[in-house]
């Protein structure tokens, strides 16, 4: 009973704060993921670019963001981004009181990290689609853009879902690190609740349960998407495809 009261909504319980924290966690994940996926494609294209400096830059990007602990990337970006943004604004002679919010810093840092891994998902998926599709589309006289949009992307989807699904789960869990730079996500709300209630085991267990539930929901959604994406292939490859 006492525990239920701790989780109640309203002035005396932590239920509503935890719900808000969950909202922040979800908002950050949902906002970061599309950015990370788009960046993954860009990084992949940079890696196979014909310009050597672009290729080198893309390789440095992936090496750095795959080597640094996420927490360092986050801390550095949060405190350092200010200087970079101020400099850019100065170039356009804009004077503004701009301040990088923890949300935005988290979004940028996490999309850098996720896209470093995501570019490899894109590469593998493109390989699976096969060079022949490019050549066929080219011989039909489609532009590069149209080839990608109308021919490659619909097929790519099927091969990229498992990889991006994994990254989504990693992202969901990595948002907990943003609590270190003062964003009120689920993990940091639990910390606040413990400060007042002195019940660390209970509150950390509660949020662990929430994270596990989110991850399991995600894998269920991923299986649905995979099934949907491979509709046309079921008959061809048998039930395992």
């Amino acid at each position, binding site marked *: 009973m006492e525990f239920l009261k701790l989780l109640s909504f309203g002035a005396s319980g932590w239920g509503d704060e935890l719900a808000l924290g969950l909202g922040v966690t979800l908002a950050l994940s949902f906002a970061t993921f599309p950015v990370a996926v788009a960046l993954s494609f860009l990084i992949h294209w940079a890696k196979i670019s014909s310009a050597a400096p672009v290729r080198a830059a893309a390789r440095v990007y992936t*090496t*750095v963001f*795959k*080597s*640094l*602990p*996420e*927490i*360092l990337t986050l*801390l*550095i970006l949060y*405190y*350092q981004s200010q200087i970079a943004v101020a400099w850019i604004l100065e170039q356009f002679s804009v004077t503004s009181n701009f301040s990088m919010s923890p949300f935005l810093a988290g979004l940028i840092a996490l999309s850098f990290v996720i896209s470093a891994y995501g570019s490899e998902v894109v590469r593998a998926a493109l390989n699976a689609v096969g060079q022949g599709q490019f050549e066929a589309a080219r011989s039909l006289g489609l532009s590069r853009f149209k080839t990608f949009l109308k021919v490659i992307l619909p097929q790519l989807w099927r091969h990229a879902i498992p990889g991006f699904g994994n990254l989504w*789960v990693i992202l969901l*869990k*990595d948002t*907990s*690190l943003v*609590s*270190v730079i003062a964003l009120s996500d689920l*993990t940091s709300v*639990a910390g606040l609740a*413990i400060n007042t209630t002195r*019940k*660390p*085991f209970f509150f*950390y*267990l509660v*949020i*662990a349960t929430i*994270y*596990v*539930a*989110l*991850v*399991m929901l995600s894998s269920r959604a991923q299986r649905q998407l995979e099934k949907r994406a491979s509709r046309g292939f079921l008959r061809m490859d048998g039930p395992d495809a």
Partner: protein
Amino acid sequence: MLDLWLGYIDLWTYGLITTAALSTAAIFLGFLLALPIGFARSKSKGILGWLALGYINLFRGIPLLVLLFIVYYGLGQFNHELRAVGLWWFFRDAYYCGLLALVLNTSAYQAEIIRGGLDAITTAILETIAALSLSRWVAFRRVLLPIALARTLPALGNEFILLLKATSLLAIITVFDLVGQARFIFSRTFDLQAYYVAALHYLVLVLIIEWLLRRIESRFSWVA
């Protein structure tokens, strides 16, 4: 940046050793724990298989930071009970608690890798071994182990790098690893470059590990 490194070289060295020791210990202990779980996952369709799956889902679902807090502050709440059963010496220490959380986390991932390696050994291979009437030892050393290693080594190598990075979270429960030292130096100097120095350490560490892994993997490339 150089003066920030040389000026605190003792701290950085200590942090580097802590990071390396904790992640190495965690990968090996995690492997030992993952072996039976991976086996159960691959070979058992019954209750053991379900338990293994539950374990994997549970510890892959909890963010490591939250798992650390549960083990360190959460279980710390039960210090009287832990004292009574003679386990407090273990849970009192932040290093052991951190190591336990790392091992629980990595064993869930490694179990899936091991399952992949076991699944690579198909009935066809086993029948071939029987047909050639190879002795158990020769079959294990010359056939089964190379196939399993070729299949799992790249993934285990990746897991080691992820674990090395994950160790950085232990700084939050008072362990002075590389990030812990960086945070300490940062709190005294307010100099962001402390984080850059830590970042360089990780970059070099990861590059060295990747180079070593490539060398080891090339020895097994004939299998794959």
